[in-house]
């Protein structure tokens, strides 16, 4: 059987919108208890909850209920939200990978288009790109490099595994899109034939 005063103090600490100290609790009880008495009862309450899913904790003389830190994972549940990397982000990532360490201005010079700040942020959020210090040139721009997580995600042992430009060309990855299209249609050969005829 829990004593009425103890119940009252417990309820007060539970319903309060801020942590309370012993004096505040004593005042709310009508001022017949000393803060010392209150403190003793609070200790009893805290002991009763110890080891449960509710804790009564003291912070600078003020008391409040909270849930134990080791259960935080139950209260804050993480869910995956898979997203496809945008074309622009893939380009920036590739430039960083091929040219690292590289500054944002250098990325833009290579891409030939302005790069929005969000694009690099996305790559850093994905943990594929990380800052790698500053380049010792006027303005000391931040430079970026790829990470181990990048290598891991793309199945690369090292950056040296990235195919060279010649390999890309051989794989057709350097062909202009419209040229590749005509090739697929087989018309190029015909032109040659026609000319020969």
């Amino acid at each position, binding site marked *: 059987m829990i004593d009425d005063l103890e119940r009252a103090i417990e309820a007060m600490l539970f319903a309060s919108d801020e942590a309370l100290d012993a004096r505040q609790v004593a005042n709310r009880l009508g001022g017949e208890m000393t803060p010392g008495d209150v403190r003793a009862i609070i200790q009893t309450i805290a002991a009763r909850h110890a080891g449960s899913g509710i804790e009564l904790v003291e912070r600078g003389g003020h008391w409040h209920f909270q849930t134990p830190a080791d259960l935080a994972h139950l209260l804050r549940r993480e869910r995956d939200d898979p997203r*496809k990397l945008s074309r622009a982000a893939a380009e920036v990532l590739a430039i960083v990978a091929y040219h690292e360490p590289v500054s944002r201005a250098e990325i833009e010079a290579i891409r030939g288009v302005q790069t929005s700040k969000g694009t690099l942020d996305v790559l850093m959020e994905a943990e594929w790109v990380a800052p790698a210090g500053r380049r010792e040139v006027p303005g000391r721009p931040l430079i970026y490099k790829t990470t181990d997580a990048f290598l891991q995600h793309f199945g690369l042992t090292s950056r040296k595994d990235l195919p060279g*430009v010649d390999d*890309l060309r051989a794989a057709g*990855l350097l062909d202009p899109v419209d040229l590749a299209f005509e090739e697929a249609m087989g018309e190029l050969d015909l032109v040659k034939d026609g000319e020969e005829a």
Partner: protein
Amino acid sequence: MEELPLDFEVAPAAPEREDALQLSLESWEGPLDLLLALARNQKVDLKQISILALVEQYLSFISEARELKLEVAADYLVMAAWLAYLKSALLLPKDPLEDPSPDELALRLQLRLQRLAAMRDAAARLLARDRVGRDVFLRAKPEGLRDVRVRRWDASLYDLLSAYGQVKLRSEPVVHMVSRRPVVTLDAALHHLQRMLGVKLDWAELSDFLPVDYDGPLRRSAIASSFVAALELARQGRVELKQEGAFEPLYLKAAAMGQGA
């Protein structure tokens, strides 16, 4: 058209009457509410209530209000008229053929009053319960349960390499080459067809008139040009055309000289 006065006088507020009747009339929500209040004044169970006495009270209440020149809303007057009818029907000797009988009407009224009273009591008991925020309290600032969405970015090595390919391509000097397409012009087709018509004497299919070494798009172009050329020569009366039906092969023969021109 009459203009609305911009600055019209507001009618002076009616002098406050120290009249409980008026105040009461306003505090009721319609005739049924007033009837229930009067019924409760009888201080008996609604099952035993005297409907006749209740009707009397209601009618005198309304007539008093009207004597005091109080405004009585229409629905109160409608109820008064109906109750006056009920009263006379209850007092007159019973007509067994009357349907519904006044007793039945009285019973219905009684049932309605019972139901309203029951809900009014229920509302009072509901409001008297231990209510959250008044009698019982929740945690003021709970931590809350959160579902956090963690974005997982995805891209394949192919995405990466093809993106780089596009970047490289963009940065390379661009050279546009316009490829010459193989065509057979109408002039060439006319020339060729005329020449061939001199050689072939009998009916021959259009495709037989084409150069044998044409194939692919060039052949398609030659067929189109030769067809138009054939039509032109036919128009000039220099060739005869024959076809068995739609999409059947088209046959050509040089027109017999002398008959044409």
